[in-house]
């Protein structure tokens, strides 16, 4: 696939942006600066990056509890994201949502979600809205291998195929639903086989290869945009961190872990860029430094932002 330099560097940049944000969040959480839970996307950056590169602000995404990467790839603002992790009034949700519920409706992000599998019907309905409005927008649903075992998966893919909705279902298979490994949770190895049951295309790709994801997502997005309906894209990947930060991870084999760390999507893509003469190491380090600065700025913004006032508890229960 021939892709232009700006696009390739953009893919690299988005992956690094996500990784930098996530590793900073890990440190902040470990230092008890972030309340609640955080579920980090480190290791899975190629998926959100490769998919969202095809989307614009008028397209919709519905995300998961591991949502930071989707939000960043869709154009979420780092300051407002970080402020939300810090539970500040300047955060995306005014401190009422936290990591698991960040949304930016103005750019089509219908929210991270604390319920596994909940993004599926939401993205399906957003797809129906796109179809009814007829303005060419589409909807993308991110969810994991665990969610693909839920009833929402079946009902959503069935409805989207019956109604020919412009939805791309992106299953991020990181092989573990908290502690339950895919091989004990389902009798198939390739989750994309499930698409057959809905009469829609199902494709599995290496989710740690950003170009493979980009290419497969391009096909699925094109299909949705041209009125040809839904698809299932399965991207096989690995989370570098525990299910949530601070989790002891008693269920993952260290050998398996090492094997996957060697397939880290970022150094892997970096090597390709250098090998193909797209960028020099120095070009890439400049990108890295830029995001380190931006993330540092976001932390400063969050730290300096005010907490919500106690009586804000009562605001926004209803739209008046």
């Amino acid at each position, binding site marked *: 696939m021939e892709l232009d330099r700006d696009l390739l560097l953009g893919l690299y940049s988005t992956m690094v942006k996500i990784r930098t944000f996530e590793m900073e969040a890990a440190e902040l959480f470990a230092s008890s600066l972030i309340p609640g839970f955080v579920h980090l996307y480190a290791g899975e950056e190629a998926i959100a990056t490769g998919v969202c590169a095809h989307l614009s602000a008028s397209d919709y995404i519905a995300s998961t509890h591991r949502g930071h990467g989707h939000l960043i790839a869709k154009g979420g603002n780092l300051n407002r994201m970080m402020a939300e992790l810090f539970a500040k009034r300047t955060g995306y*949700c005014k401190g009422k949502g936290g990591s698991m519920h960040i949304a930016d409706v103005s750019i089509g992000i219908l*929210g991270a979600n604390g319920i596994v599998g909940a993004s599926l019907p939401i993205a399906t309905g957003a797809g129906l809205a796109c179809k009814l409005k007829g303005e060419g927008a589409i909807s993308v649903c991110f969810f994991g291998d665990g969610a693909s075992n839920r009833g929402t998966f079946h009902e959503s893919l*069935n409805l989207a195929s019956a109604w020919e909705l412009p939805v791309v279902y992106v299953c991020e298979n990181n092989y573990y639903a908290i502690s339950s490994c895919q091989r004990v949770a389902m009798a198939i190895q390739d989750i994309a086989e499930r698409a057959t049951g809905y009469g829609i295309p199902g494709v599995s790709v290496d989710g740690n290869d950003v170009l493979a994801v980009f290419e497969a997502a391009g096909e699925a997005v094109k299909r949705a945009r041209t009125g040809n309906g839904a698809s299932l894209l399965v991207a096989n990947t690995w989370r570098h961190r525990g299910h949530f930060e601070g989790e002891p991870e008693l269920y993952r084999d260290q050998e398996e872990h090492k094997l996957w760390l060697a397939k880290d999507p970022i150094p892997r893509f970096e090597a390709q860029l250098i090998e193909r003469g797209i960028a020099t190491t120095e070009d890439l380090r400049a990108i890295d430094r830029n995001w380190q600065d931006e993330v540092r700025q976001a932390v400063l913004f969050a730290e300096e932002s005010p907490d919500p006032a106690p009586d804000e508890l009562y605001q926004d*229960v209803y*739209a008046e």
Partner: protein
Amino acid sequence: MRTITYAKAISEGLAQAMRRDPRIYIAGEDVGIVGGTFLATQGLLAEFGPERVRDTPITETAIAGHAVGAAAAGMRPCIEIMWMDFMGVCMDEILNQAAKMHYMFGGQIELNLVIRVPEGAGFRAAAQHSQSLEAFFTHIPGLKVAFPSTPYDAKGLLMSSLCNRNPIIFIEHFQLYGWKGEVPEEEYLVPFGKAAIRREGTDITLVSWGWMVHKALAAANQLAQEGISTEVIDLRTLKPWDQETVISSVRKTKRLVIVHEAVRMNGFGAEIAATVGEEAFDSLDAPIKRVTAPDTPIPFSPVLEDAFLPNELTIAEAMRSLL
């Protein structure tokens, strides 16, 4: 004024709202070709076509869940869940998604979403097709709950719901679909949080909603023959509910009986009793009484189901016990 049925009042309200607002669409099981199991969407498919009147598969989770996503993306879905008992199948979509989004996202999203759902017993339909579960939904901040007892309110509350900016559980009662009443042809709104005094009285206050309003009125007629004057209040919406009307009535009559078809424990009557106890304890001359279904599943046998349901006799008996 002309009279039409409760079912016709609903379909007429839907049609008028849909003509005015292109964002409104209908989805649910049998809402299109059949016109709704109880004919509350009759004629809409012919007028608005299959894009806006969508027969769905049997897929309650996706009916409710897709509607949340469509509303978040700027549509105004009015979906139907065929029986209240089936709400269990789509509870996450209502409890954790629809009800929470506006607050949890810091006010960014307004969900203009109406979930129409019939409920009620008396059809010998047994434990999975008869329950009155309105209290569930009143317990969830972020939702509003309407429950009309007349054709007039059915249309007016539905029109209000369809221009509200929040997720609404719009409960209809099976027993009422065929009831006729005066309904204006033009559009009008019945506001949320404003009860209707169905009968004025001075000796005892009866509070109810849905089908039981009519049982309460029958009981009030009976007591009138015994020289007792009853004030019957129809709440019309349960969330928000009209505390002011209920409390000022209790201050006048000094006695309160609450009637609901739902089972007793943690029914919405408990909320009313607690509120009146907190706000008007000094006005009461007698304990607050609840007339409710017992804490059992709903049985099939007509003999057993009749024993399960409150009726005008049990209501009248409770009222007499306070005098």
